[in-house]
């Protein structure tokens, strides 16, 4: 292998020069250059930083090397590393790299080394369409899918037999219209539109049970399978709740400004209609409370743990999929606990204690207690580990948001419509 020398006579101004995809072992298994070839030795600077950071999460996203700048993201145990030569807004690159990873996810169901290697041709075709000369060209999944069809076992068999191809012959309509997100000529026998309102509670609760901060991250995911060019309008019972929102480009912002309704021509298939944020300045209901005591004793090198969870503000709904994750200090060797409900596991190597509770029964509160065995001769940990809570409440948006109606214009058929609510714990942390 002879690395190609880059002929640098002047700085070449394009946004994203090259992309390297690197697995968790540090192997570069895919590279793509949108202009002249940059030797992969440029990644050595990245590997150095990766080494220093210990945890892959801690690698600085922006790095500098003598001739290039490296901007990377970490997704699904893969690093997407782009090489930049000149000034560019770093978020531009980061956002694009995430969009690439999203597209892979969308096409192949996951974004991992094995699927990328298996579908390297489609990956290459996608990258070719997504970026031209370092500038994003087509990033809408609807447009891309018209140009390059996602893999599908039946078609790949047929294609190899007939020599057919995965590549569309014409320019997708979306590229030309004012609504690049929707492909043309959509036809369904069952016309349906489903919306999932998902809210995640991010909270920090301190030792005494006081809420230090709490906010809600909401997202409305849509799965719209409607023929033709439907024009939808969604209105809310209480739109006043939403004061900080971001929309899919299809949403008409001015309608929202003036009437507080979402008016849009939807993309075909799955998409995120909007996300919203209800900040800590509002009252946020906390669905569960946690009573815990974790203590480590100097003598005898052991510790005690006792956690009880009870319902707090659940709005009369059942809390499901309750799970507590504790990242124990290094000195904890083993845990000998009994759970009144559910199972617990303690992973000795990662120091993760996971207590899977399941449904929360308000009559009989789940409890986990027992002793922790500690490494001898090591000073006791100073800080008690914080508890991360996972939970799910069906049919409830904890902020109180409700969709009041969904209307369709522009088409004559009657679609099936449905809205589902679910509340989850996001970054829900209880300090101890």
């Amino acid at each position, binding site marked *: 292998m002879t690395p190609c020398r880059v002929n640098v006579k002047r700085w070449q101004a394009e946004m994203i020069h090259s992309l390297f995809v690197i697995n968790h072992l540090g192997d570069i298994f895919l590279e793509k250059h949108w202009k002249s070839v940059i030797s992969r030795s440029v990644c050595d600077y990245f590997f150095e930083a990766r080494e220093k950071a210990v945890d892959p999460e801690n690698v600085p996203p922006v790095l500098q090397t003598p001739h290039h700048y490296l901007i990377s993201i970490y997704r699904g145990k893969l690093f997407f590393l782009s090489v930049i030569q000149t000034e*560019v807004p770093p978020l531009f690159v980061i956002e694009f790299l995430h969009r690439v990873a999203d597209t892979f996810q969308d096409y192949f169901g996951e974004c991992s080394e094995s699927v990328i290697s298996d579908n390297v041709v489609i990956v290459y075709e996608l990258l070719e369409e997504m970026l031209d000369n370092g500038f994003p060209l087509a990033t809408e999944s609807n447009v891309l899918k018209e140009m390059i069809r996602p893999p599908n076992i039946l078609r790949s068999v047929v294609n190899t037999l007939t020599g057919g191809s995965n590549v569309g012959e014409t320019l997708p309509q979306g590229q030309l*219209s004012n609504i690049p997100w929707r492909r043309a000529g959509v036809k369904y026998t069952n016309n349906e539109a489903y919306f999932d309102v998902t809210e995640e509670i991010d909270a920090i609760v301190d030792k005494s049970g*006081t809420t230090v901060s709490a906010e809600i991250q909401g997202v409305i995911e849509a799965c719209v399978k409607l023929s033709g060019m439907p024009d939808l309008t969604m209105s809310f019972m209480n739109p006043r709740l939403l004061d900080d929102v971001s929309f899919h480009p299809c949403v008409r912002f001015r309608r929202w400004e003036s009437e507080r309704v979402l008016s849009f021509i939807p993309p075909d298939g799955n998409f995120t209609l909007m996300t919203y944020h209800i900040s800590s300045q509002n009252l946020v*209901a906390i669905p569960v409370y946690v009573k815990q005591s974790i203590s480590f004793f100097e003598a005898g090198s052991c510790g005690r743990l006792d956690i009880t969870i009870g319902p707090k503000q659940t709005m009369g709904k059942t809390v499901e999929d309750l799970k507590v994750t504790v990242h124990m200090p290094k000195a904890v060797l083993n845990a000998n606990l009994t759970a009144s409900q559910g199972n617990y596991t303690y992973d000795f190597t990662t120091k993760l204690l996971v207590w899977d509770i399941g449904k929360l029964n308000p009559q009989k509160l789940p409890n986990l207690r027992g002793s922790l065995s500690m490494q001898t001769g090591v000073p006791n940990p100073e800080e008690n580990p914080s508890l991360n809570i996972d939970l799910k409440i069906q049919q409830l948006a904890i902020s109180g948001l409700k969709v009041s109606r969904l209307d369709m214009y522009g088409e004559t058929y009657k679609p099936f419509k449905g809205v589902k609510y679910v509340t989850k714990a996001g970054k829900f942390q209880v300090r101890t």
Partner: protein
Amino acid sequence: MSTGVSYNDQGGAEAAVEAGQESTPTSSSTGAAFGLFSADFKKNEDLKEMLESNKESLKLEAMKRIVGLIAKGKSASELFPAVVKNVASKNIELKKLVYVYLVRYAEKQQDLALLSISTFQRALKDPNQFIRASALRVLSSIRVPIIVPIMMLAIKEAAADLSPYVRKTSAHAIQKLYSLDPDQKEQLIEVIEKLLKDKSTLVAGSVVMAFEEVCPDRIDLIHKNYRKLCNLLVDVEEWGQVVIISMLTRYARTQFTSPWTEGAEFDENKAFYDSDSEEKKDQTEAKPYVMDPDHRLLLRNTKPLLQSRNTAVVMAVAQLYWHLAPKHEVSIVTKSLVRLLRSHREVQYIVLQNIATMSIQRKGMFEPFIKSFYVRSTDATHIKTLKLEILTNLANEANISTILREFQTYVKSQDKAFAAATIQAIGRCATNISEVTDTCLNGLVLLLSNRDETVVAESIVVIKKLLQTQPTQHGDIIKHMAKLFDNVTVPMARASILWLMGEYCEKVPKIAPDVLRKMAKTFTAEEDIVKLQTVNLAAKLYLTNSKQTKLLTQYILNLGKYDQNYDIRDRTRFIRQLIVPNEKSGALSKYARRILLAPKPAPGLESAFKDRDRYQLGTLSHSLNLKATGYQELPDWPAVAPDQSVRNVEIVEPLRESAPIVGKTKQPKSDKFYSDDEDEKEEEGSDSSGSGSEDSSSSSEESGSESEEESSEDSEKTSSDSGKSSSGSEKSSSESESDQKKKKKTKKAPQKKSKPAGDSDSENGNGPVGQASSSSSESSSDSESDSESDSESDSPAPKKKTEEKAKPKVAVNSKKEVSLLDLDDFSPAPTNAPKPSVLSQSLLSDLEGLSLSNISSTVQVTTSSFGPLKTYELLHHMTGKGLSAKYHFPRQPCLFQPSMVAVQVILTNSSDHALEEIHIGDQSPASLNIHCFNTIERLEPGASVTVSMGIDFSDSTQAANFQLCTKEDQFSVSIQPAVGELLMASTMTEQDFCKEQGKLQGMNETSATITMATANASRQAINKQVLSVANVGEVPSSQNNFSRFAGQTVSSRALVLVSLELSESSGALLTINTEKSVMASMLLQDLKQAFAQA
């Protein structure tokens, strides 16, 4: 190059595996056998055979494998002749893969690459726009200098293509050609000029990109297209938006005058499309600054993009507002930036960096969102550090107690690097906020007994810096550190202790020589930095206490003389000459004392982001804090605005130019749109008319879809703008409109208005020469304007809430000279410390927690920040001769004395002249103990300032009477607290609650059955009502029909326990247990009333 080696090692194996995979069921098994057992060149032979076969499927298979090779970074260049033959293939996938190959290797095989050129030239004439575009893409990507003229011709043709998609491709090709041959610049600029006039949203982003690369200095090309770009912006695809916004930022900085100059705060509110008469009226009033309408247009049209899902777009708009908007409008970006913090880790990193820079200059912008910057244990280290940085920047007197409580948690973090950074942050807070210096210092001293060495070391270093800032009366801390000296091993910390000993050796005359004695014993084993400080200590002690230390000093100097490190030898020699008088030493030794024991300026503890603002926000340079290649400085505002008329577009001109690409029907309308004097309000916003319906019928025929696209776009544009202004007049979502109204009102009757405090910003903005009297009031009013503008479109109820929430921040700082406009220079440190103040009990107890003791008392006092606030009137502006005052209880521990209730007073000057020397007059001896705010030297008309006071009500609801004085007048005012404000929230467990309740039976129990309004029956509503009445904390309850709350009286710390038992009907039993029976009955009354209300 470890990777290179490992890579070569794997090469063969990988190739084999890959070949195995590629030979899918259909391809002959021979291929697989070849791949597995033969060397590389053989394998390529096989590929060559496949490429030369007649079967399309085999060719495709071969190309797929070749692309696989390229993707893995392996060379496949020797296949070039075989591959290039297939460039004219009918199979579109095969053709595309050949393109990929060609672009990759053409540079190396230029002659062979030329063979393919004729195919592309043919394809450029294809009727299918997709094929035309992709031919141009590939042609322009082939980096072969010989074909430059062909490329140039192709670009020129494509730039006039009917299809906007092809025109977009040509804009991309411009950049490629330019980097291949910069000599084509002039011709390319011509093409850019032409494309800039294009009205398709598709083209706009790409051509601006080309402009930025080829001729960023040719601002003159933008003039005529400026308004069009502003108006198209919303509909341009997201990546193009980023590029256009950053270009327009630069453009605006060269074409408009600064909105930050004196008087700027008022006039840019003027609505853009106002009638001429209005404008003239303003001019006659001799306003110093009028915002260029085009400047306003840009700000207005970028604002909706804050709602974009693309984080890069949001950041681009944020930086545009930061660099271009009048100071008080910048805060509208806050909320969107905070929202981005939920995004991916990498996005958080960049956004936090930018917020860190912004928060130094503008605390007020982010203060209401302080909780969003609290650190989670799961955050990555660099995220944690950035959040810490921001929290430190945002710290002020009002929130310092909360922040220090957070820091206390962080210090205990398992991530020791982060814990150390937290200690640094505590140090910065201590220097910046003089009220808490002592508390922080004590907390840090407690940390010295921490088990972790890095924590101890960092504390010592920070304590050293703090002591240097206030060296008085800290003898005991120094002594304490001397005692610790034996146990500290981190060199930096040891050196810091030694330095402190030397510097303050007169304060610890007994201990210092002893430390020196110990050091003499261990000198040789110490680190260099410790040795240096030992020498320093010896020298200083020799000068002050030579009797005891002469021998020791000589011994140490001798050790230093033969040290291995030349720095130490050097220092030793220097010190010896300086302090030991001998015949050789000159005049210098006479001054030894003055040299060594000179008072030294304290080191400043500054933010690492202090000078980041020299880079444009959101740029790579800002992120790296160094100038990246190709970074363009953001130009300064011009002193005098260049000619505005250059942006005027004549009605006919653009039509001619772009005639072939514009649809026929809507031309007049679209042009009218660009003209200045169009009254937009005539058109009603109806963007729902929907491009959708028009697009749905779009045919595949090119010309058809073309004109349709143009027309729908035009209608979108016009409707968008009219929609904006109409909605502005109705719902005041566009602030310029509503502000305009307020402004008029102000002018007519400046004396007569009583505005809510939340409006202070608009008043600031409207007074003729208004300046806020202090910079901190500016920042607070900014954040108010933020919440206000956001809630404007909401109904009154939540608006009130947001306003109130935005308020709990104090601005006691009274730097008078600083006008609004000097904000750039505003340092985060308040310079004048009022008085040595005693901190609240709770804060002290928080910092005691730093000692990491695990003993926790059953009752903990907390600040409940979740209750809504009520504002009361203190002084009406009619009685106050223009001075109005309102107050509220922030429900935070009082900074001045623990037994005081914190009160925040908002003083507003609604008169037409400045008020001077606002202060609290003498109190009668019988009155309550009041901690006054510092005198406010000057309050400009329309300005308002928030100050905090502390009042010791001694747990009674008697009013605090005092005199509010200005230079001329005195007004008697009184603050009458609601009983619930005399409490502090406390947290306790349910058991503790029941236990305490058991102790407070009989005489101490007051109860009543109350009726509940139905709306109040839910637990959440109960909490809300109780918290609105009294500052109590909720006790987690296991029974659903029981609600419990606990609090303490502020003065005497008596427990107040409130419990509420819901019965079946709408009634409930309310019980209050406390020693203070009078308070109990009053509280009962208040609660009863609150619950009865719906």
